[in-house]
């Protein structure tokens, strides 16, 4: 159908509302592209929470103290909660969790590529909490002001928990860094491996980020990739100093003129490889998620059948 005048005026009114900083709510009219962009973004965020349970879940049964085990179990459970909460936000846009899960396990929708790196030692649990949750907070704080109401509200709640996770990760690393020589080395090795991938979490540089302009106009995205990355670096460098751990970047130094830290070039080829499926764990992460879904099918089916029988019993009574 060709666009009519009324479509154009609706588009205009929508943009005006956005410009006036009004949030978009599920029942409001919205351009189809806004809706589909929002669905994709929220779904990918939800998938990231769920896939993100795997690298850390990898260490629950081996956690080196019962206290740390409890903290980690609770954290991974929080991530499941974030996933659920975000799938619910996506559902306000007329899609179902089932369809989105299908898109994830068939590789048609993505998740944050950071989770395609393996957790090789216990220190990786700390590095993920500190750096990956730290980067997530930087991203998500900006998203608390995103234009789609249910997503923005989900971010407020999720950010509170993420900052716990970040503090716990920092504390875990701090204990290792001040611990035995082997523990310190373990912590440094983890930071060496997670630093650059954490910087990649903010996405490609602004000059190569095709979706940014429209997303900024619709206020889906409020701060650009490069600005968020800079915020994260500025926040994290002093924390690394407090941890007595080095960040693996010889070009990292304070720049008085810019009032920011300068940092070295990111290996975008590595980013492209991991995003396009060639990271260490891409296949493994999806296989685990798919197996859980397939192995659980008979359980969900039984629950549905039982539910059905209960409600027909109630209506017969």
């Amino acid at each position, binding site marked *: 159908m060709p666009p009519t005048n009324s479509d154009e005026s609706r588009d205009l009114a929508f943009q005006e509302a956005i410009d006036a900083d009004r949030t978009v709510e599920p029942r409001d009219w919205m351009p189809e592209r806004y809706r589909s962009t929002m669905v994709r973004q929220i779904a990918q965020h939800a998938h990231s929470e*769920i896939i993100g*349970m*795997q690298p850390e*879940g990898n260490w*629950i*049964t*081996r*956690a*080196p*103290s*019962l*206290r*740390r*085990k*409890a903290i980690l*179990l*609770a954290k*991974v*459970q929080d991530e*499941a*909660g974030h*996933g*659920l909460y975000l*799938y619910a936000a996506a559902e306000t846009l007329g899609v179902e969790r089932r369809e989105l899960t299908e898109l994830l396990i068939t590789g048609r929708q993505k998740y944050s590529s950071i989770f395609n790196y393996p957790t090789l030692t*216990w220190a990786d649990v700390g590095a993920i909490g500190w750096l990956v949750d730290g980067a997530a907070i930087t991203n998500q704080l900006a998203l608390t002001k995103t234009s789609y109401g249910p997503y923005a509200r989900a971010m407020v709640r999720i950010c509170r928990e993420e900052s716990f996770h970040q503090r716990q990760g920092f504390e*875990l690393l701090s*204990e*290792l860094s001040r*611990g*035995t020589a*082997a*523990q310190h080395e373990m912590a440094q090795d983890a930071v060496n491996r997670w630093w650059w991938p954490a910087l990649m979490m903010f996405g490609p540089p602004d000059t190569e980020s095709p979706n940014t302009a429209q997303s900024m106009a619709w206020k889906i995205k409020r701060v650009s990739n490069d600005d968020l990355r800079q915020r994260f670096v500025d926040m994290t460098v002093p924390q690394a100093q407090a941890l007595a751990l080095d960040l693996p970047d010889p070009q990292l130094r304070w720049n008085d003129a810019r009032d920011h830290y300068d940092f070295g070039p990111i290996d975008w080829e590595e980013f492209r490889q991991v995003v396009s499926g060639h990271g260490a764990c891409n296949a493994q992460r999806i296989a*685990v*998620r798919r*197996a*859980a879904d397939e*192995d*659980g*099918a*008979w*359980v*969900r*089916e*039984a*629950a*549905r*059948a*039982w*539910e059905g*029988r209960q409600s027909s019993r109630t209506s017969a009574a």
Partner: protein
Amino acid sequence: MTAGVAGLWVVDLREVALGLGDDCLVLSHRLAEWTTHAPELEEEMALANLALDLLGQARSLLTLAGEADGRDEDHLAYWRDDRDFHNLLLVEQPNGDFAVTMTRQLLFSTFQELLYRGMAAGTEPRLAAIAAKGVMEARYHVEHARLWVQRLGGGTEESHRRMCRALDLLWPYTRELFEPTESWSRAADQGAVPPLSSLEEPWRHSIESLLADSDLEIPGFPAWQSGGRLGRHSEHLGHLLAEMQHLHRSHPNASW
């Protein structure tokens, strides 16, 4: 032997707390193994809740058990070999499918709730305090397991078949629940814990009535396995402990 509070020997308190603590620790580990493998996200949350509750109980009980000789919860969790673990055989059984996991939970949590109710009213104040908190958690675990056993028992042909198999698989390990060690019997004589024989009838009744509702029944063969409380375990526990303990043991003097 040293007499402790309420006439209970320290060695008996230690052994009772250790057995109950090991039940919680080992079952918590099994439940945590479900992480990222649960049949749906809601269940991912629920299984983690169960695991966390049990881990919390394990920590309190092990701390109490270690008090007498100054060993802390981590020392007890990470530095004992399987012959020194006193948990029931039931809780160390592998997760199997979701029907096995929920059946194991039903059999154990129903027992644990009854036991905690008795212990919460018992004469040993620290055991009573742990039980009073634990009983609310156990109640929720029982509710959760009952709901799933009903759904699976009365769901589809496949889920019903899997439930029957799970019951056959786990029933042999239920005898041990009601076999007191010598320490347990002495603690029961002092009123610190309930006599296990007093729990068997309400336990069986609770499970039997649920199964009857779900077109299921208690297997016709007798339960015969036991030995966990005395440190004679199945082959499974050694593997579980190897995984749980290896990192801690690799850094003997580290703190985490």
